[in-house]
């Protein structure tokens, strides 16, 4: 994940001010900087690359439209993440996407036997994505933010609007559930 240091942060504040003042072209710099993070969050939350692209582009557009409301007391990256998370939540509620543990199991059954091979790694990645996708949405959010994007609990608090302590508990449960999914499927496979 791209992490902005203090200098970057003040540069980002100045870019945001330029955008608000009407020079929208400089927004491209922020899009370039955070597109990888936003796209991967959307993909992990939604499980489909094409939908992830659409949702992450919409997130950038929504963020641009709301730049006037951005407060310099927060980081642009965490503010942007909260927008992506909301977009993903809206999409999932609208589509009622549901991945069951059986999907994860089926995916693991088809894993190639060669653990060093690239096919195996790809299949493992797909299985992992299915397991993440099978988590309840709240749990998926914390796994994506904590373990895929590397945010700390304080940053997650400002992204999700939930206290850090509650998020710690939620992360523990999410890890346990993920472990259960993956070990169960492995057990069935073996």
């Amino acid at each position: 994940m791209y992490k902005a240091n203090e200098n970057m942060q003040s540069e980002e504040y100045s870019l945001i001010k330029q955008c608000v003042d009407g020079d929208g072209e400089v927004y491209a710099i922020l899009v370039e900087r955070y597109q990888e993070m936003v796209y991967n969050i959307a993909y992990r939350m939604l499980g489909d690359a094409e939908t992830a692209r659409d949702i992450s582009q919409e997130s950038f557009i929504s963020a641009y439209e709301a730049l006037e409301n951005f407060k310099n007391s927060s980081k642009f990256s965490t503010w942007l993440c909260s927008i992506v998370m909301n977009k993903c939540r809206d999409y999932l509620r609208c589509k009622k996407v549901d991945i069951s543990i059986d999907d994860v199991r089926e995916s693991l059954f088809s894993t190639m036997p060669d653990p060093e091979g690239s096919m195996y790694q790809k299949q493992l990645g797909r299985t992992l994505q299915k397991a993440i996708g099978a988590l309840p949405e709240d749990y998926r959010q914390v796994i994506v933010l904590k373990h895929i994007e590397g945010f700390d609990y304080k940053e997650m608090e400002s992204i999700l609007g939930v206290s850090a302590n509650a998020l710690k508990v939620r992360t523990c449960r999410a890890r346990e559930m993920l472990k259960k999914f993956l070990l169960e499927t492995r057990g069935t496979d073996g």
Partner: protein
Amino acid sequence: MGKMDKERQLIHELLDGELSPEERREFLDRMNSDPLLKREFDDLRSIVNMVETGERLIVPPLFTSQVMRRLPAPNVSFRKRVSSFFFGVRVLRWNMATALATLCLVVIATGALLQMQKKGDIVSDQSSLEKATRTVTISFHAPQAEKVSLAGDFNKWSAEKGLMKKESNGIWTLEVPLQPGTYHYMFVVDGEAWVSDPHAESYRDDGFGNKNSVLRVSL
């Protein structure tokens, strides 16, 4: 909270790096003596590792430009628009095709400018020639004559165009504006007699048995 729950909580705190060095040491010792607890920790750690080191997706091409195209037009005042037009920093995007097209335009424009400059030089040469036109006074002594004309290749040998003016001393004069070059001429006395200039620099046969006077005008 049961013993297992308490231990699970410690496993998660260890994974999050939230145990103090002393708590950490104590918990690791306990895991070493409890294979079940160790298995629990190892399973969880391997799952977390798998998630953290999972392959990241590469952003599709043209992502940024697609976002930028869909951005709404900014709602800014006229003053700000003018100020941004003149002083706003711009992000220049380019690719090899546009760079080559620009290079071609620059080469063509430079060639055209050089051509125009050459043409300008020719025109300017011509205009300097025009500027170099000199007035030459031609005179002919003929006190008895009633009328004398100057005819030459500079006035298409017209006896009417080059009427000379008689001075009191019997000398006929005419001022002729001429550009640098060589000219042939003769005097026409009383409209009939074609006479060469006795003071000409040189002469040249006119093909009819007479000699044209030769005049050279230099810069």
